[in-house]
């Protein structure tokens, strides 16, 4: 306990913190213009000067820690005079108009508090303004050289866009382009705007729509990182989004999607009225009509073709409560296990492999472990683009000295920070990971104590894996044996080592087996069950972990319980027998539809036509359906081509509920604005339809919380999580009781399926397609920073200005050979279809390899992708398709 006298009063502190922290904890306000909790103290503005122990000179509160017996003066007349002098120096350079325009800025409030408005005599210089970025307005006439923008860009985002030029009073801050922000390496995360204490950097939305009058804390609706943010509204409209400073995942940071891409909510083409297609044309309908139509059609088809002819797709964009209801609807109302979600096309392989080997199909650790890990193995995950906040944290960890190993066929941004980049051939993960395991075994780098206590099957594995020499894998993967060995050594020796993986592991024919190989590495080296370690999938969509975990899976009930194990419990709670026969997966439904055995599909928030691989096959299947019900915000490609009924859904800004992020954290989604037009929350629509189909009693919920309370009764690991507890931050399951703090690290003492986990012997199978004379290139697909998956949301925002279209990344060498230049359109043809898109010369891809995104319907890249699937869970092979390039 430290006793400190502050302004004549004695205070006690548990530990030594900075004087500024201590003062803020006591609500003693002193100015500190260059200080922000998210960054290291800088000591530039000198306003937080305080007098300590009556010393001859003041010290800076931001940079001085309290110690026992200290006497601190915070507001003596001299301090006030010094602060006033400093503020006056700043005011003299500052345009008065800025103060009037945005009176609430930190600096502007200080100027008023010290009565210095009249001193503001700087000029607003047009040459210091920059409007090139669609979201960020720059006016460096209002810069006070606190460098907060420079520092947050480096210390939090790791982008280093803002640079300090010149010195002394000629110091200027400019983007790294030397020209404007648009031409710089800026990724529009907005961190600089967020920290700027003046109007130098401002959100354009605030300038055009006004400052927010209300704030609502909620959880981001984009990727599975699960950032918490504050939504600022004015007159029922979103005008600004800021990161929640105390959020456990994002620590006061957001990316361009979470912070800025919210305009889709008010997009002109948003559908806000139910519609029924009749005679080929969509006609507006009332909710009663649309629900009645759907209920009748579903009932009729089920009666005519049997219960296995109908199915539901839950949504990774919807809440846990809504996904719980979607699967309950399928099982209770329709009487079928034909329920799935988009996890099928992304991380179902992860969930399956980890469930099988460890007993829980979810990340073993937490995002906070990124800062604990000494080695970070990033495998098939382009985190800085697809999970930018996780990516920024990985970058910062690497900058602080963590050893980063990247396994990726492309030179993704993280490779710039990596000690090792294993640029393998697409589709050879298993060979590489086996060879790493072989090196670990050969060089006696196993954690023997861990092996003995927690791992089984080592004897057989040992015999098997020794055939996987680094040399053997190197020739298959196109790598050097030495780099494979170096990666294995680092992972095994520089512990704790954390593995983070993405769709580059799972979206392959050996997707599930690839994850198993990662688990093998963790088991051999004891890198599991402890902080800074583990196997951690970066989940793609905000609630894809939740959608599957709530039971949107043909073989699994809520809480990841098998149909057999959960039968009695769920039948009792739902007061109706749960169907026992495993249902059809999403791809199974499409296959059955193509055969004429499956007839009606209700797709909630999921554009299957645009996003499924091998679109021609999807098309053939969807064409044969008698009923396609689309529940979405927009007339997506599935709806446009094949839909019969359209049910307009509310966005996540317009409803309450919970999401589950990639680290098993349940977080609240809170309503910030009213649903637009007649759109309604998914849970309300599901309940209405259930009522219309005679099951109203089982769907009589008064609120999302009401649904959550039912979930708690069937899901033991979530039983301790109440909305009330979530008010003060999310909770990570397992959390079986109200007094349980939640679980940051899984499998610490034992695995969910027992004390020991078994190693798996995985044989490498050659990639499903290899280049030949007719199809000489391998096409890899993925996503980019500015657009999210099918682009349904981001393409309706100014992100479209930042990246207007899909393009084909090709190496300089191949582009030269094809005599193609940047921007020139080409046709890529596979055995399954073709697509036309412009070329982008990118040395992140190797010669012979191509990369493209499938964000836009104009390009419709999935016309090209292959029909091959993972042999465990059927996930499509998105990453390896042999193609040729033709002139468009």
């Amino acid at each position: 306990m430290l006793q400190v006298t502050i302004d004549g009063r004695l205070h006690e502190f548990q530990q030594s913190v900075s004087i500024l922290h201590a003062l803020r904890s006591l609500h003693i306000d002193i100015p500190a213009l260059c200080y922000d909790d998210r960054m290291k103290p800088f000591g530039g503005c000198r306003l937080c000067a305080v007098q300590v122990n009556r010393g001859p000179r003041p010290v800076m509160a931001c940079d001085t820690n309290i110690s026992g017996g200290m006497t601190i003066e915070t507001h003596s007349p001299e301090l006030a005079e010094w602060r006033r002098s400093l503020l006056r120096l700043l005011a003299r350079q500052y345009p008065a108009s800025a103060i009037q325009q945005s009176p609430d800025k930190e600096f502007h409030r200080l100027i008023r508090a010290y009565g210095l408005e009249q001193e503001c005599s700087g000029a607003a210089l047009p040459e210091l303004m920059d409007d090139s970025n669609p979201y960020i307005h720059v006016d460096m006439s209002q810069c006070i050289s606190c460098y907060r923008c420079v520092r947050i860009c480096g210390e939090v985002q790791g982008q280093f866009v803002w640079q300090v030029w010149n010195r002394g009073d000629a110091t200027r801050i400019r983007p790294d382009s030397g020209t404007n922000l648009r031409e710089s390496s800026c990724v529009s995360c907005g961190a600089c705007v967020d920290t700027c204490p003046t109007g130098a950097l401002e959100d354009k939305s605030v300038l055009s729509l006004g400052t927010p009058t209300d704030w609502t804390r909620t959880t981001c609706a984009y990727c599975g990182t699960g950032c918490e943010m504050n939504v600022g509204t004015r007159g029922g409209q979103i005008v600004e989004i800021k990161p929640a400073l105390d959020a456990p995942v994002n620590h006061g940071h957001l990316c361009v999607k979470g912070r800025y891409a919210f305009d889709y909510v008010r997009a002109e083409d948003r559908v806000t009225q139910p519609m029924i297609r009749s005679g080929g044309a969509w006609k507006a309908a009332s909710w009663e009509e649309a629900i009645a139509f759907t209920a009748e059609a579903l009932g009729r088809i089920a009666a005519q073709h049997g219960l296995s002819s109908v199915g539901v797709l839950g949504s990774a964009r919807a809440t846990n409560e809504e996904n719980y209801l979607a699967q309950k609807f399928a099982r209770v109302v329709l009487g079928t296990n034909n329920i799935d979600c988009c996890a099928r096309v992304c991380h179902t392989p992860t969930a399956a492999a980890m469930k099988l080997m460890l007993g829980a199909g979810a990340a073993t650790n937490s995002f906070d472990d990124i800062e604990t890990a000494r080695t970070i193995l990033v495998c098939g995950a382009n985190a800085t683009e697809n999970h930018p906040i996780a990516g920024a944290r990985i970058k910062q960890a690497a900058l602080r000295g963590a050893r980063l190993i990247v396994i990726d066929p492309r030179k993704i941004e993280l490779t710039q920070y990596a000690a090792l980049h294993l640029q393998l051939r697409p589709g050879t993960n298993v060979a590489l990971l086996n060879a790493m395991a072989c090196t670990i075994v050969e060089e006696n780098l196993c954690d023997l104590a861990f092996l003995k206590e927690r791992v089984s099957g080592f004897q057989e594995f040992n015999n098997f894996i020794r055939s996987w020499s680094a040399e053997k894998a190197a020739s298959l993967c196109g790598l050097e044996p030495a780099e494979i060995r170096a990666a294995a050594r680092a992972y095994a020796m520089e512990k704790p080592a954390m593995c983070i993986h993405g769709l580059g592991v799972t979206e392959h024919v050996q997707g599930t087996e690839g994850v198993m190989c990662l688990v093998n590495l963790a088991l051999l080296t004891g890198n599991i069950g402890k902080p800074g370690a583990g196997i951690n999938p970066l989940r793609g969509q905000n609630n894809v972990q939740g959608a599957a975990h709530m039971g949107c899976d043909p073989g699994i009930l809520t809480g990841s319980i098998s149909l057999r194990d959960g039968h009695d419990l769920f039948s009792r709670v739902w007061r109706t027998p749960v169907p026992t026969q495993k249902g059809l997966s999403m791809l199974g439904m499409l296959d059955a539809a193509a055969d004429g055995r499956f007839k009606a599909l209700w797709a909630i928030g999921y554009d299957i036509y645009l996003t499924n691989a091998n679109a021609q096959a999807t098309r053939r299947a969807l064409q044969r359906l008698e009923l396609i019900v689309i529940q979405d915000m927009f007339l997506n490609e599935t709806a446009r081509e094949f839909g019969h009924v359209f049910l307009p859904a509310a966005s996540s800004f317009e409803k309450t509920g919970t999401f589950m992020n990639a680290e098993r954290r349940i977080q609240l989604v809170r309503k910030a604005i009213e649903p637009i037009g007649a759109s309604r929350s998914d849970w309300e629509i599901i309940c209405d339809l259930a009522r219309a189909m005679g099951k109203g009693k089982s769907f009589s919920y008064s609120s999302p919380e009401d649904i959550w309370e039912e979930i708690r009764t069937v899901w033991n690991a979530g039983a301790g999580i109440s909305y009330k507890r979530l008010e003060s931050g999310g909770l990570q399951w397992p959390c079986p009781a109200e007094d349980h703090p939640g679980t940051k690290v899984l499998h610490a003492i034992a695995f969910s399926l027992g004390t020991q986990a078994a190693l798996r012997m995985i044989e490498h199978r050659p990639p499903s397609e290899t280049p030949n004379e007719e199809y000489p290139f391998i096409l890899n697909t993925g996503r980019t920073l500015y657009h999210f998956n099918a682009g349904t949301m981001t393409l309706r925002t100014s992100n479209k200005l930042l990246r207007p279209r899909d393009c084909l990344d090709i190496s300089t060498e191949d582009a030269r050979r094809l005599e193609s230049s940047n921007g020139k359109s080409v046709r890529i043809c596979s055995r399954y279809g073709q697509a036309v898109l412009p070329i982008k010369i990118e040395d992140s891809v190797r010669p012979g390899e191509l990369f493209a995104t499938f964000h836009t319907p104009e390009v419709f890249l999935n016309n090209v992708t292959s029909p091959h699937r993972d042999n465990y869970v059927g996930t499509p092979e998105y990453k390896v398709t042999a193609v040729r390039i033709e002139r468009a």
Partner: protein
Amino acid sequence: MNGKHSSAHIASFYHLFAENNAEQFCRGTACFAARHTNPDRWAKTESDEQRVYCLGKCFAAPASSSDTGRPKMEVRSREPIVLGPIMDGPIRSVAAYTAQGGYRTVEHALKMPREELLGMVELSGLRGRGGAGFPAGKKWRAVAGQPASQKFVVANADEGDPGAYIDRFLVEDDPHRLIEAMSIAGYAIGGNKGYIYLRKEYPQACLVMEQALDEARRNGLLGDRILGNGFSFDIELVVGRGSYVCGEETALLNSIEGNRPEVRLRPPYPSEYGLFGKPTLINNVETFANIPWIVRNGGDAFRRLGFSNSHGTKVLSLNSLFQAPGLYEVDFGIGVRQIVEDLGGGLQTGPIKGVIIGGPLAGIIPPHLFDTRLGFEELAGIGASVGHGGVIAFDGSTSIAELIHHVFDFGAYESCGKCTPCRLGSRSVEQMFRQITGAGHVPIHEQKECVDIVSALAMTSLCGLGTGLAEFARSAMRHYAEELAPCFK
């Protein structure tokens, strides 16, 4: 790491980053004080857009880069420690240096227990000659005590204080002594790599040092297992690009690292978190120059020299207005009056109006305080400083307002811009005195503002540039109040 980014923004910090073969005219304080002795040249200086502050030729001011003279050198101390070896001319080759017994001290030191060396430096009472006067032994001990596997030794040869040209000649005339001393330091603290950060304004020193390092390496005096011993040590020469602030040790480290050379917050101190984040010993050239003597003669012998808490000798550099400008090695304890009258012989140009010791970022000593004795605490007691040891006298042709304007113009030009008081305050005072020297006065109410800014500078500046400017201004306002009074009306 960020290959996509150029370092142009870093280069923009420095004013001498570009190669420039044109003749440069010095604007240093000694040249300013002597401007009336060569008005034609000063006119050129003022019209030159490329500013340069102090070429280390204050003994023949106002100076230009084309001047080639050497200063007078004289040992007035009991022991010829620093200047003694070069009294008969430069010793630039390994042969010349070893003929005088050079490199024998390091050979001897490498056989000593490290602890004994540290103890010697501590016992000697040697204090930093670069301005702050921090006990060298404490620094050595602190770095030696760090458990890191990599440590650095850095020689601060960025003698930027206008008026000082001591380190310039220690490097130009005796480069191997610096190499030898740094090697001893490296051995004592457990570091294998040294850096010499030398200012670009001393081109001859750069040339000599580069050749000396090269020759030392070729003779096995630097590199792997020096002198056939188990200890390896090498030194890299880093030439500055024009910035006064780089003489501040943490800015200097940032500069070597290729970062913007702003002052770092302390703690952590460089002894713990220095160059590239590793424990680093930084001493200035003259401090290092004392080391071989201390190792040969023992800490106690050194401690017996000097007076009060200032031990050993100090080299002073007297400016051109004196009858006898030049370099003088003296014992601490000598009176300011002796410096001015006995060493310098008074001014050539008339009565002395005041003297600035240790560069312009310290208090002026007016004639009525000339009885003060040379010592760290003694000079601090009258608001002045030992500093680097530059001694600039000025005469009646320099008004105090002109002097204040000159010093604040220098300060504002050299401010790194990180902290508010220095970035904006130094310029405000400069502009106020620009108006005073032009129109003769400013409105009276600006006097309070001036005092307020100086107070904020003194109390809240991040480094010695801001506080030094304030000390200078306060001493001017205190000692020359009468002269300054009509400036505000």
